[in-house]
């Protein structure tokens, strides 16, 4: 599903985030990405979501060379990936419902379907009943869960999450991790960047460890 081959990423300011990184995530797998702050975890997820482009090397996602996807193709490509962002990226002036519904609205789904799917997703993250609240009226952990609901609402075949439990208490973090596991069980490929070693142990999935842009598979 995801294949990095000799990927280098140097940012415009000269900082080398990834150096000759190669790894593969097979379709239907669930994989954790770990490593210290600044190791390049978010950079990998950004390359997959086409937010950044590699300086060298090949990033293949769903049998597709991402280098081939140009401006106009990006939007369609992104609709097939669910992303949980490290900083949530919620729209502060729209209620929770609208935030979660956004991927469905963009895909042009009809109103009735949107209603049903959004409710189901909010239920899964324990926020049913908060549809009309605005993100600023939520605690950090609640915001994080809204971001997770939005990532899964359109049932994408690939789910990538950047530190999805950083603001959650240990028990809630475990519940969310089980949610990802359930998605994985029905065939969704899942890639999660996290610091939480306990969760990784609990989920018992494969782990790719990074150190300063290099792989240190453990």
């Amino acid at each position, binding site marked *: 599903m995801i294949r990095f081959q000799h990927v280098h990423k140097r940012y415009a300011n000269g900082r080398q985030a990834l150096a000759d990184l190669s790894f593969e995530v097979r379709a239907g797998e669930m994989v954790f990405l770990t490593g210290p702050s600044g190791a390049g975890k978010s950079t990998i997820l950004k390359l997959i979501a086409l*937010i950044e482009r590699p300086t060298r090397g090949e990033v293949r996602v769903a049998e597709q060379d991402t280098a081939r996807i140009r401006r106009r193709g990006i939007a369609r490509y*992104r609709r*097939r990936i669910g992303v949980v962002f490290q900083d949530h990226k919620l729209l502060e*002036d729209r209620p929770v419902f609208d935030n979660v519904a956004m991927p469905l609205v963009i895909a042009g789904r009809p109103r009735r379907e949107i209603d049903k799917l959004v409710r189901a997703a909010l239920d899964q993250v324990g926020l049913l009943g908060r549809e009309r609240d605005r993100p600023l009226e939520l605690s950090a952990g609640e915001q994080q869960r809204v971001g997770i609901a*939005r990532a899964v609402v359109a049932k994408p075949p690939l789910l990538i999450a950047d530190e999805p439990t950083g603001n959650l208490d240990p028990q809630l973090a475990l519940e969310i991790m089980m949610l990802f596991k359930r998605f994985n069980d029905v065939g969704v490929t899942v890639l999660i960047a996290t610091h939480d070693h306990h969760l990784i142990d609990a989920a018992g999935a494969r782990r790719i460890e990074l150190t300063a842009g290099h792989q240190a598979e453990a």
Partner: protein
Amino acid sequence: MSPGPYFERHAQTFVGALGRLARRPLASALIMGVIGIALALPLLLQLLVQNARALTSNGADAFELAVYLKPATEEAAARTLASQLRGRSDLAAVRLVTATQGLAEFREHSGFGAALDLLAANPLPHVLLLTPAENSRGSEALQRLQSQLKELPAVDDVQLDTAWVKRLQAMLDLLRQLVLSIGALLLAGVAVIVGSTIRFEVTSRRHEIEVMKLLGGSNAFARRPFLYSGLLYGLGGGLVCLTLVAVARYRLDPAVRALTATYGQDAGLIGLGFELSLAALAAAMALGWLGAWVAASWQIRHIDPT
């Protein structure tokens, strides 16, 4: 994508844009006010020129050319010349004042009275009073006409009735130039105002657009709300503009009546009329949409999520 959700989405976006405008009524009103003012000014000036032209064509006497025929010319020849001139397309009216009529008029007005009966012969020439056609009242056209007439064998001299004509024409020319320059400036101004308003809106909703793009929204999807905003600004501005023109017309009417009174008439300002009003409104909306399109397209294309 079925047509149902597509239409639904547009309707929703439109309502959304309306809602955003309504949520900050003062700012929206101010922007529409500025657009309205900018659109109203060229219309007002155009109205002024239009009215001035209407005035001067009603006050046709001001445009008379006096053609003095040579003293030797027979009255019959003068009549022939008059009917020849009536055939010219650049003349609206030709009036022959024969030497006899002239003397009679002079006797009445000059105060010489019976003294003139003492004259051995009538010293006055026949005179043709010409009113140029409406499209030949520019100062150049008048001068051309004057020199053409001067070359006719029977003609002694051609005089414009007063310097007034030239002055008015020159003033109208000046005003028309002014209207064109100001109009162009202000229409550009409107596009710029809408554009930069939309530009700021895009900037202030940059985060939202980034998120939309991250979730797979196309540029067109992100742009749509701004196009509706632009359209609404144009519509609002157009309405303000029509209101301003109506108010200005009402306020300036006394001054215009005073002006027409000097022509012995009593006519107020000519208004814009229904069609021109509608056209102005449509133009305002088009300008709003266009300004928004340019600004939003340009900005949105350059928002790249990080």
